[in-house]
């Protein structure tokens, strides 16, 4: 059964939201979703761009109270 996990990378200078997402996707199963919380607005563009390159699925992003939630589904 598909799972959803949240990686709270708000305020993380190193390794940062995209690196945390890459690490989380390696441990996830196909169909699982990973939600990344990021205080870096750049994640809203960086993450979908990388996800498209490697063939995962960008589910969506939402602006919350001073941070962004970006959700990705592991597709392969």
């Amino acid at each position, binding site marked *: 059964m598909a799972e959803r*996990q949240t*990686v*709270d*990378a708000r*305020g*993380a*200078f*190193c*390794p*940062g939201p*995209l*690196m*945390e997402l*890459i*690490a989380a996707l*390696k*441990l996830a199963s196909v169909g699982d979703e990973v939600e990344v919380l990021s205080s870096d607005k750049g994640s809203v563009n*960086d993450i979908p*761009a*990388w996800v498209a*390159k*490697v*063939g995962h699925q960008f589910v969506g992003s939402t602006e919350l109270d001073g941070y962004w939630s970006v959700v990705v589904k592991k597709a392969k």
Partner: protein
Amino acid sequence: MSKTILIVGGGLAGTIVANGLCRQLGAQLRSGAVSITMLGASDTHMYQPGLLYVPFGRMREHELFREQSRVLDRRIHYYVDPAKNVDVEKKQVSTESGRTFKYDYLVLATGSRIMPQSIPGMQEAAHWFYDLEGARKLRDALNNFQGGKIVVNINAPHKCPVAPVEFTLMLHEFLEGKGIRDKCEITYTYPIGRLHSLEPVAHWAGPVFEKLGIKSEIFFNTESVDPIGKTITSMEGSVMPFDLLVTIPPHEGAAVISESGLGKGGWVPTNTKTLHREGSDDIFVVGDTTNIPISKAGSTAHFEADVLIDNLASLVQEGRWAREYDGKAFCFIETGFSTGTYVWFNYQTPPTVAPPSQMLHWFKLAYNRLYWLSARGLL
């Protein structure tokens, strides 16, 4: 009634915590009110950052090691008997030899390990310096190397995030010293869209790499390595030939963590400030073992350990909390064989890179010796 503090893991984080607790809980240890037990995997303690120097012949193997019994305070009950299962309900840890240890407070310091076997072909074709055997093989490969394409390939997640940059700059100087730099092409690959996860380090490294003729490819996450065709392929679709592949393999946490159901991949969900395991007030997590989204590095482990020592000692002695971890990390960065710099940051303060200097390089060399004072809880 006597309180038992059980520390699982005998690396940097566990050792600093154990020795630091001994310094603060002297009276309780003397009276028998507290006992400290540590479970580790080896009777030797390795200074892991020293592995960076081994491939270049700049640190001898024996300089990396001390007997763990000489590093640890004598009041610590140390067992070379790795944990096999952690049972948080029964508050006990069982070991590979079949012993069972009960605890009142548990410190998880099981660290991380490289997983080259998780990428097809990597173990067969690549070199690395993140363990002693790998560093030895890389030393031999570099000594025999006469020219060609070298790929320095970084994978996520990995510990000691500045080490790949340090290695690349030291490699450039090594090849120059050998008189073959003009016969070599160095290409550095990185998983995200810049040269380093720390933005100021990435901005600093860009022009330095360009000046030194070091090529780079960003958004490169290794999918496979072909040991026969000598190519490395990324998930992003890039294929790169190599004559020598130096990789920072992806890391995972300890198997005992995932097998005990304490965290996927061996990373334990941890409160970013208190360092408690999420949902437990008697279990602390320190060093690479946490899932806190900050650098997995020796300095992080050290600063976390300092906070943990104060809190655990305060809890035992006074039943109160001392302070919170602020996310502090500090990393020296070797920028070659004769200059160095550093970067530091915490949860609130963005990182900055100091101008490289000879003095900072000497400071790093001095710290390579001073580390043993840190491990003993003196520095």
